[in-house]
């Protein structure tokens, strides 16, 4: 069943995108003690956690299927950025996202 590794990768990208969101939130906090910056720590932890479903997926399906799917993380990150950070989207950004996803698919399936 190829559907299970695919779902695992998608789960990994969702966790990873939340990690990126926490890194962004933590990066703007002026806290000299890195260990006290819980957003940054949570971001790193989520990033690390996101590799777990990915590694399990890689054991069940070829990389040429797994890698291209990771590019959905660009979609999640854009959604999170506009929802939680109030970042403005525009046609250029959407076009860039589509072009980058296409580029990642081209490289990772070659």
């Amino acid at each position: 069943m190829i559907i299970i590794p695919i779902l695992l990768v998608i789960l990994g990208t969702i966790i990873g995108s939340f990690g990126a969101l926490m890194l962004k939130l933590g990066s703007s906090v002026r806290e000299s003690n890195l260990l006290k910056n819980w957003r940054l720590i949570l971001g790193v932890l989520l990033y690390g956690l996101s590799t777990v479903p990915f590694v399990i997926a890689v054991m069940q399906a070829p990389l040429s299927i797994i890698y291209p799917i990771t590019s959905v993380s660009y979609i999640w990150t854009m959604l999170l950025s506009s929802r939680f950070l109030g970042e403005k989207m525009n046609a250029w950004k959407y076009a860039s996202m589509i072009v980058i996803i296409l580029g990642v698919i081209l490289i990772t399936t070659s």
Partner: protein
Amino acid sequence: MAAYGCRGSNLTAGKDEEHRTTLRAFFLVILCTIFTSAGQILYKIGASRLSLNPILIIRNTPLLLGMLSYVIGAFLLILALREGELSVIYPIISTGFVWVSLFSARLFMERITLQRWMGIFTIILGVVLMGIGSRAPVQNREAEKSHRRMIGK
């Protein structure tokens, strides 16, 4: 921008403000991808001589350098995010695929296929589009500039 960048800034700080991405943030994230790609290459070299003996792991220079590259990459990413929008910075991390392709071709004699070249140029095009998108017309740009000057950023 008032709460933004201060300790304990809240989740939706600056919701109605324009978040701008500095040129330096672009350089920082691209530098980050160079380090993480170098890290991946070093891991690959280190993995070929990997053993479970702890002393040999400590002596596995490529592996240790790979880890160091990753840590430096993480710091650079955080610095980039500090002065850049997540929606702009995050997709640019895909530049890592370009470096890995180029480094592998150089070091492991892997041939870059036509499809891979197309992928490389497509990602570069995407980053250029993001550069344009991050600088798309913004209202009150002058107002924000003067505000930034006031808060000394």
